[in-house]
């Protein structure tokens, strides 16, 4: 993991997952991280006093803190933290705005039968925004237990039950936290980032904006664990379940050594106009060849293809009818 990303204080002694300094329990396995209180050698009586008027104070359910019944002042006590945390590591833009524009040009010039022939000539760039989109990147080990039905070994029924247990190591798996980019766009972008280039501060075009993380820590942890389960499920389906088709795959994941870093990843979002309509394209901020987006369809070309298809089917039927006579 990079220098910029090391913010965790220590690890859980049961599952070795990274902990934040104010965690009282491990978010993965539930082990208490708070040091055990040292019991007093002899009994002692404690009176909690108001720091303002020295009267004895009581805990107030409304204020959820000790509150003085005389002067109304609320005592500050340690409260559970669930902050919305921001990026710890920024990947620099290595694709310049000019290169992103050229990438759009290449995207528009791609040949496809269903695209209008004049797309590259008539499309105009409407807007281009460099953006750092938020993502969690995790490393973890997982003991994955699974069960599934598959066609391997099936008897009278089409399915036979199978089970297994396997260990996986997840390295630099990216989970999107972006609301601006779609899940499909993020998935296509993630493979081409050089995470080793992470720095503490953003480096890129001056006009680049930073999309903020908007999920509180507890929600983020839930999303990350769900993403790990999904990733594990995908790997099991691909590599572990025997047979050619399967159903009802269930996984149970026992995580260890989970470390998560909040990244800001660079990309360009571009909008181009063709015949009064806007289309969106996303260009990778570190690899201009990775570009994805929408392009218009040519109506008459689609009609021509449908007609040609219908004609081919008609001819085939005619030939078949003639052949049977």
């Amino acid at each position, binding site marked *: 993991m990079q220098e910029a990303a090391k913010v965790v204080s220590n690890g859980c002694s*049961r*599952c070795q997952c990274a902990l934040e300094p104010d965690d*009282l*329990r491990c978010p*993965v*396995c*539930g*082990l*208490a991280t*708070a040091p*055990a*209180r040292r*019991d*007093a*050698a*002899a*009994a*002692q*009586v*404690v*009176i*909690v006093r108001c720091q303002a008027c020295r009267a*004895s*104070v*009581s*805990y107030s*359910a*409304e204020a*959820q*803190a*000790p509150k003085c019944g005389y002067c109304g002042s609320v*005592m500050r*006590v*340690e*409260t*559970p933290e*669930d902050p919305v945390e921001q990026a710890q590591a920024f990947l620099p833009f290595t694709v310049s705005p000019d290169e992103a524009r050229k990438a759009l040009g290449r995207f528009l010039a791609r040949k496809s039968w269903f695209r209008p022939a004049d797309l590259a000539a008539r499309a105009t760039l409407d807007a281009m925004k460099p953006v750092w989109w938020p993502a969690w990147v995790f490393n973890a080990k997982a*003991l994955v*237990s699974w*069960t*599934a*039905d598959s066609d391997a070994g*099936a*008897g*009278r*029924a*089409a*399915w*036979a*039950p*199978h*089970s*297994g*247990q396997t260990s996986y190591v997840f390295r630099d798996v990216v989970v999107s936290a972006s609301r601006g980019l779609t899940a499909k766009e993020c998935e296509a972008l993630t493979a081409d980032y050089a995470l080793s280039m992470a720095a503490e501060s953003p480096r890129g075009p001056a006009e680049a904006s930073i999309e903020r993380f908007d999920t509180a820590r*507890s929600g983020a942890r839930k999303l990350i664990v769900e993403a790990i389960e999904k990733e594990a499920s995908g790997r099991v389906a691909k590599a572990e379940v025997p047979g050619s088709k399967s159903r*009802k795959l*269930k996984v*149970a*994941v*026992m995580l260890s050594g989970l470390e998560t870093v909040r990244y800001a990843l660079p990309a360009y979002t571009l909008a181009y106009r063709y015949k009064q309509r806007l289309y969106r394209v996303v260009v990778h901020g570190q690899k201009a060849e990775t570009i994805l987006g929408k392009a218009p369809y040519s109506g008459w070309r689609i009609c021509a293809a449908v007609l040609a298809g219908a004609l081919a089917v008609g001819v085939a039927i005619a030939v078949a009818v003639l052949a049977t006579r």
Partner: protein
Amino acid sequence: MDVQCSSCGARLALEENLRTIECPYCAASSIVERAADPERPSPTFVLGFSVSQIQARERAADWLRGRSLFAKKGVHKAAVENVRGVYVPAYLYSSAATSGFSADIGEEYQRTESYTTTENGKTVTKTRRVTETEWRPLSGRFAEYIPDVLVTASRGLANEELEAIEPFDLRLLRRYDPALLSGWAAEEPSMSGSQCLEVARREALERTGERLSGFMPGDKHRGLEQSTELSNEELDLCLVPVWVMAARYREKAAPVRIVINGQSGEVHGETPLSWLKIGGAAIALLAVLAAIVFALSGA
């Protein structure tokens, strides 16, 4: 145990099962930290009250109003009294569970069968699709953490009562601080750690059994057996907020005990049922059925 109020100097007798006391002379709340005792450790965590006494009373009144028609007379409008907010000691248990399991998994398939029937006085043979189950044995391994098992450490609140008002939002756990107890009754654990560990283990195994049941593939399963080892166990004493009160519905009858989760407001109590009302309803139902049968037989 005698303690001296450090506000006015009065000597007060503190019950053995309590951790807090209010001075009757100066109203100062004292928290008593007893000397080290392995059977009575200091709490690690506290969950603060967020339901006030007024809200707890309202919840109890709503709960009483919503009782069944067969509740004893007066229950729906019973007066709530002796409302006490208590920090109840409970152990928070967590561990790693590794299991071996075996079960028969049922995979369904369809089969066409012939059958004979009579149509218009003639015997005809027909076919129909029937669903059959093929049972296949499956065994395997399962591993998961069990993070949040909460069991009572108080003889004053049965584990069933605690389970009935769970869940508590454990994300709001705070490190133990005497200031969080000030002004409230707080109990010391009256059950030993080893007793609570046994209860927690039972609950952990039940939870693993439920997880395994949902983990089985196929269309159905039977004969699920598990052999689970719980390792890396941890037991932390926690004080959880509970409102306890009594609802008196009749002068000489025992009041209804109501417990309310001091964090979520979840209510639990045993409704006293009126056997007179249940018997009356059963007789009325029988009378209606008899009348229908009589009417039909007459027709």
